[in-house]
C-alpha cells in the first residue's frame, strides 16, 4: 500500500469555487510538502508545512497538518483554469530522510 495517498482521485470544479485535496500518510515525518504538476511539466512545490506547524498559507493556498491522524489538506480558494493540474503530497521516507515519498496525486480540473 502507498505510504502517502491523496483523495479524491479526481475533482472537477468551476472557476471561482473553492476546493480541498486531502492526504494521508503512514510514516513519521519532519515535514510535508504539496506539489503541483501541470501537463507536460515536472512537479513544482506549492507549500511546505513542518511537523510542528498546524497551518500554512501561500496566497490562495492553505495547507493544514494533523500529525496525530497523519493527515494533511490543501485548500485552494477562488480557483482559476490555470489551477488545473495533478496535486501531490510528499513526505520524507522516514523522519529526517531526504528522500521524498509521493502519493499518486489528485487530478483537479477547473472549468470556465
Amino acid at each position, binding site marked *: 500500500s502507498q505510504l502517502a495517498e491523496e483523495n479524491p482521485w479526481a475533482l472537477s470544479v468551476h472557476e471561482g469555487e473553492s476546493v480541498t485535496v486531502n492526504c494521508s500518510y503512514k510514516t513519521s515525518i*519532519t*515535514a510535508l*510538502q504539496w506539489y503541483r*504538476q501541470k501537463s*507536460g*511539466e*515536472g*512537479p*513544482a*512545490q506549492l507549500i*511546505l508545512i513542518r511537523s510542528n506547524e498546524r497551518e500554512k498559507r501561500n496566497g490562495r493556498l492553505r495547507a493544514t497538518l494533523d500529525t496525530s491522524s497523519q493527515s494533511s489538506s490543501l485548500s485552494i480558494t477562488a480557483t482559476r483554469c490555470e489551477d488545473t493540474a*495533478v496535486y*501531490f503530497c510528499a513526505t*520524507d521516507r522516514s523522519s529526517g530522510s*531526504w*528522500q*521524498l*515519498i*509521493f502519493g*499518486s*496525486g489528485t*487530478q483537479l480540473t477547473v472549468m470556465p
Partner: protein
Amino acid sequence: ETAVFQTPNYHVTQVGNEVSFNCKQTLGHDTMYWYKQDSKKLLKIMFSYNNKQLIVNETVPRRFSPQSSDKAHLNLRIKSVEPEDSAVYLCASRSLGSYEQYFGPGTRLTVL
C-alpha cells in the same frame, strides 16, 4: 536561466535497445534524483546522488544505471529496454539542508 533541464523530451525505441537521458541543473544544488512516473501519475524514486553517495532504490532493475560527471549533471542509462520501462522519467535536484526538490520537465519514453 536557473533550472533543471532534461533531454530529450520524447524518445521512442524498440525492446532491447539502449537509451540514455540527460539531466543538468544550473541551480547549484548538491543532490540530484531520478524518478519514474507511470501512466497513473505515480512517482517512484529510482536514484538519489550527491558527490559523495549514490542511493539506489532496491526495486530498480539492474539495467538502469545513473551516470554523473559532476554535481550539476546526472544522466540515466537503460541498457536493454523492456515494455514496462515506458514511462516519464523525471530528474530533480535539491540543495543541502532544504526539503524542496526542483524538477525538470521530464523525458517520455515509449518502448515498442
